[in-house]
């Protein structure tokens, strides 16, 4: 409840604050359907869609991170650890090099992320048994492979396209075209994951224990992998690869709420969303009219908060 209201608060702040200062009365007038045309454009066409996109992206990444950490039973796991962002980036940068319009770049990023997920899944499946260690290793290696391809493309890419490519890699909500696909994916997966909370709790104690307690481990692991991939793919499609949210928000919540997935997953959606909304608001106003990528701010805001929580928990 607290988190939900905090999230609403963040979105409200994000709508009220911008490089053009509007009074609260102006904002209210627009939200109630009145107000000047310029103010309406600023709020309804620029700030609100961007805040919603930031919320959806942050939520998607935090939930995906929480899922990956349960799946791999590794605290360092984040949504990108298995190479999804790398696959998305390679496809997106290729389509930027080929001079395709923004919509195609988004679609390419989505296909790249899912393609990379399928590749990692297929390879780690191999002939032998499917263990999370194999999955993690395959993912990490493929991820470094994508990294090399990205560096190669940046090195040979035409100079005039480099800034756009770099900004995509840094993650930036200026590229978010519409918040709705990401919001819908976030809502749907939350609905699907909620009933799985208990099984996830058991799984996080280890696959043997989970099997002993009657959880169908293999299908559960596959569905976690599948849904985390879908979540991450939607997130990178909306805003490029924004770092940090997926790694740290779930840990933060565990420090505060304890390790109950039934609580962590919805809380991650809200807290991840709120963090990114806040970060993006700072990013577009801090040194306005110059704009910063949101990824910088997520880390700058998140690192001290996380360290404080970690320090206090001892």
């Amino acid at each position, binding site marked *: 409840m607290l988190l939900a209201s905090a999230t609403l608060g963040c979105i409200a702040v994000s709508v009220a604050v*911008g*490089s*053009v200062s509007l009074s609260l009365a102006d904002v209210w007038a627009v939200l109630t359907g009145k107000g000047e045309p*310029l103010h309406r*454009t*600023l709020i309804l*066409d*620029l*700030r609100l869609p961007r805040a919603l996109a930031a919320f959806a992206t942050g939520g998607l990444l935090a939930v995906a991170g929480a899922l990956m950490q349960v799946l791999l039973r590794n605290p360092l796991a984040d949504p990108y650890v298995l190479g999804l962002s790398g696959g998305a980036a390679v496809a997106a940068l290729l389509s930027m090099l080929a001079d395709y*319009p*923004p919509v195609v770049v988004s679609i390419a990023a989505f296909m790249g992320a899912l393609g990379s997920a399928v590749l990692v899944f297929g390879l780690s499946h191999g002939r032998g048994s499917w263990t999370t260690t194999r999955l993690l290793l395959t993912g990490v290696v493929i991820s470094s492979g994508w990294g090399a391809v990205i560096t190669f493309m940046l*090195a040979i890419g*035409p*100079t*005039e*396209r480099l*800034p*756009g490519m770099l*900004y995509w890699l840094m993650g930036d909500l*200026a*590229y978010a*075209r519409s918040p709705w696909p990401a919001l819908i994916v976030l809502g749907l997966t939350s609905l699907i994951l909620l009933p799985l909370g208990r099984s996830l709790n058991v799984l996080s104690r280890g696959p043997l224990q989970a099997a002993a307690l009657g959880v169908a481990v293999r299908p559960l692991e596959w569905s976690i992998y599948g849904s985390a991939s879908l979540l991450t793919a939607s997130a990178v499609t909306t805003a490029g690869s924004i770092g940090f949210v997926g790694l740290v928000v779930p840990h933060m919540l565990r420090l505060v709420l304890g390790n109950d997935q039934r609580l962590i997953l919805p809380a991650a959606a809200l807290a991840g969303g709120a963090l990114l909304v806040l970060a993006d608001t700072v990013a*577009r106003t801090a040194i*306005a*009219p*110059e*704009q910063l990528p949101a990824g910088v701010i997520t880390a700058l805001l998140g690192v001290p908060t996380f360290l404080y929580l970690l320090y206090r928990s001892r």
Partner: protein
Amino acid sequence: MVRLTPALVTTFVAALITAAAAHANPKRCVVDDIEHTVCLSQPAQRIIALSPGATELLFAAGAGNQVVAAVTYSDHPEAAKALPRIGSYNRFDMEAILAARPDLIIAWKEGNPREQVLQLRELGIPVYHGDQRDFKDIATTLNRLGVLAGTEMQANTRAAHFLEAIEHYRQRYSKAAKVPTFYQVWINPLMTANNQHFIGHALALCGGENIFGELPRLTPRISEEAVLSANPEVIIAGGMGEDDPSWLEPWRTYRNLLAVQRNNLFFVPPSTLQRPSPRLLDGIEQLCAHLDTARGRR
């Protein structure tokens, strides 16, 4: 009764059509560099330029007073320095742009982020996309900006002068001895420009022979070895600032280079050769003079 001769009918019909066209379309329309038609019902009074080059072109087209905001590094002419800034060419502040209430935006096809330019168009602001690749494009852009800003007279004069000056150089140097030249765009990594670039065009105009002109990329990254083996007669460099010839110094250690032996290391302020604006003439003048100096040292 008036006899309707065919000629009279034709004249009458033609007049009707003209009147109808003028009535249905009282607009100033131009086609921009991505083949979009940009139409305004009256001359633009609040223009935003999304690249330093676009700012220069607008001022050159006589529309300087109608420019209300620009991006960082819009440093020419002097009046442009005082314009409010709305961010840099590759990251600009959408709110600040809308708050300036522009009635025309001059975008840069290669440099500006497309999502945001597209969004500005979707918000109903007329956007002219510029992508000038040669001297003729600069003149054409001046003409078109003149139409959009209602300053056709000044813009067309400026464009015509620009083309005349280019033609003057072309004639003067078409028979001049070729000078193998290396143009250094950047030092680290070492970068040059090919023949498609303005620098390449300018070199060709002055009778220079760009040693890396045939490379496929517009601004190729190259090795020092490639420069040494091509052994240019002249090395020309830009620099970090408008008067910083320090990039030429490292070449002096290579005493076997023809350019070093003849002391043909020259500096040309980068903005005069790298921006699509009529100021290219300044850069070309310096470039041609340097190549003449090199010919004199043969």
